[in-house]
């Protein structure tokens, strides 16, 4: 089996402060995992804010270079790729579709541009065909989107356009950073189901970054749980979330509020540690 994406003990640290008071912050520490070519899957990265999951996404996308370690796509170092060739293989989807698109630019322009630059379409005709094909995969069509501006669509539709834009390039891997946290409840499941279909029908691998354990359980195949830049637990998604072993994973799981947690706060709470400034809480 050959690996599509391989992370080999990657770390990223940022430095903060002035010349004399430099502080190093380790955002990601020694993270390793691999996704196989012949086994498309949804690989979830779970963690709270500040756990380094977005930094990890940026490194996979080649936006940040890791401080140490190597990320390989199809056996080649990501840093060695030409940018355009790399983007044809790996495409991002971001959290907030309203911020991802320029409000003054028509949506189809993004799709055509992606088709011409990364999708290998030559000429307007080919770009339009490719765009329409991608939009149909997400349940839209070029006729609906042509000439529309971002404000004319709802959050759910816009996020689907963002997914279609990623698909136009015909990538092998999609990195989705919190793709459903800005989408309304009634539309959230249609986006999550769409990811499942992309995996099953198109054979795409998806790195799904989220803090929502319930959708991770619902859709993903494998996952890692990160805390302060370190992977604390990894394995098959359903097994890990059903019986988490690391104390942090258990804490995360127990904090999830579901419709079944009715009355969770009716009981009086035991005294907890008192927080002081400077301590992270």
């Amino acid at each position, binding site marked *: 089996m050959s690996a599509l994406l391989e992370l080999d003990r990657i770390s990223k640290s940022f430095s903060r402060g002035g010349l004399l008071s430099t502080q190093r912050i380790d955002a990601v520490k020694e993270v390793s995992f691999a996704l196989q070519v012949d086994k498309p899957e949804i690989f979830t990265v779970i963690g*709270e*804010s500040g756990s380094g999951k977005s930094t990890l996404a940026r490194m996979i996308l080649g936006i940040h270079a890791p401080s140490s370690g190597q990320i390989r796509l199809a056996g080649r170092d990501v840093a060695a790729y030409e940018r355009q060739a790399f983007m044809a293989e790996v495409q991002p989807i971001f959290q907030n579709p309203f911020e991802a698109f320029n409000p003054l630019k028509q949506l189809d322009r993004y799709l055509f541009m992606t088709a011409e630059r990364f999708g290998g379409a030559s000429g307007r005709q080919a770009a339009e065909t490719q765009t329409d094909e991608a939009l149909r995969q997400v349940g839209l069509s070029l006729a609906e989107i042509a000439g529309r501006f971002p404000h004319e*669509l*709802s*959050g*759910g*539709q816009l996020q689907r356009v963002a997914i279609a834009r990623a698909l136009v390039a015909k990538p092998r891997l999609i990195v989705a950073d919190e793709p459903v946290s800005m989408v*309304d*409840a*009634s*539309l*959230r*499941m*249609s*986006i*999550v*189901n769409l990811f499942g279909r992309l995996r099953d029908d198109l054979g795409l691998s998806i790195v799904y970054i989220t*803090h929502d*354990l*319930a*959708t991770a*359980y*619902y859709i993903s195949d494998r996952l890692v749980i990160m805390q302060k830049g370190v992977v604390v637990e990894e394995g098959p998604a*359903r097994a890990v*979330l*059903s019986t988490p072993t690391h104390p942090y994973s258990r*804490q*995360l*799981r*127990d*904090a*999830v*509020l*579901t*419709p*079944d*947690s*009715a*009355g*969770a*706060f*009716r009981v*009086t*709470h035991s*005294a*907890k*540690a*008192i*927080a*002081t*400034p*400077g301590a*992270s*809480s």
Partner: protein
Amino acid sequence: MSGAADQAPVLEVRDLQAHFRTRYFGVNREVRAVDGVSFDVRRNEIYGLAGESSSGKTTLVKTIAGLLKPPLEMVGGSARFSFLPEWDAIGRAPQEVVRRIRWRHLSYIMQGSMNVLNPLRRIRYSFRDFAWRHLGGGKAEFDARAAAHLERVKLDPSVLAAYPHELSGGMRQRVTIALATICKPEFIIADEPTTALDVVVQKDVLGMIRTIQREMGSSMLFITHDMGVHAALTDRLGIMYAGRLVEDGETAEIFAEPLHPYTRHLIASLPRIGDIKQREGLEGTPPSLAAPPPGCRFHPRCPLAMPVCATTVPAMIATMPGHRVACHAVNPGIAA
């Protein structure tokens, strides 16, 4: 649960209408963000409001709190508080009355309120700005009181000397909860107070809100789109869709037996750990409030839609004691 003596409502909202009105170049545009909403909040209970973004939740509570700024206008109806019986809405009362009751009787934890603290002032001064005029007393006495109150939300008194940036998001959120509760108001409005926090901190903060609310016996109007939070925290729940209330009742009852098709979908679509059943999103898009569909606003997306739904607005009817729903399929033939 509330006893029989607690049944008198602290807040009575009747047919409340609030619209955004703009007039540019002779073109009038009216967005009916809140359109005929009625409900009660009783003493010592947490009433939850659920609904997706742009369903009018925030506009509704802003109108109730009297925070009306153009283009938002209160067009009709009333929202009467038991501590202000002489006015039928705070927005209609004069400024000095509003100033007297704000924080003392009614406090408002706004969306993203962890960012409302002045970054250049220590927490101590924020407390003085907000609450000193209501509580009175000497400076040292007031600071001691603030410190004691901070301990209630599990914060060290040294937080008073800190600047907001020295505190984490969860701690700042607890400071705003402390600010909103120090005067022991009868009514607290909380608009998505935990949405920006991660799950572990959120659970902590919610438990704290519940404990403080019980200790003081205040009423609370709690808004979030997260149904899991509603299930865990609220006593009663109202579901909003496109500016109208479509269902309300005891939270446990709504989760056990949702009546409105929209509520049913909201609850059925929630994925749960340990359950791998296929869940579907709702087709279609939320309606534009500038040109809402006629009749029931949910009918274009509703699986149970009938011809009458497209023409007649369904009335909010109590199908069971304390459980109201506005739907023609549930209450056949009753128009608003």
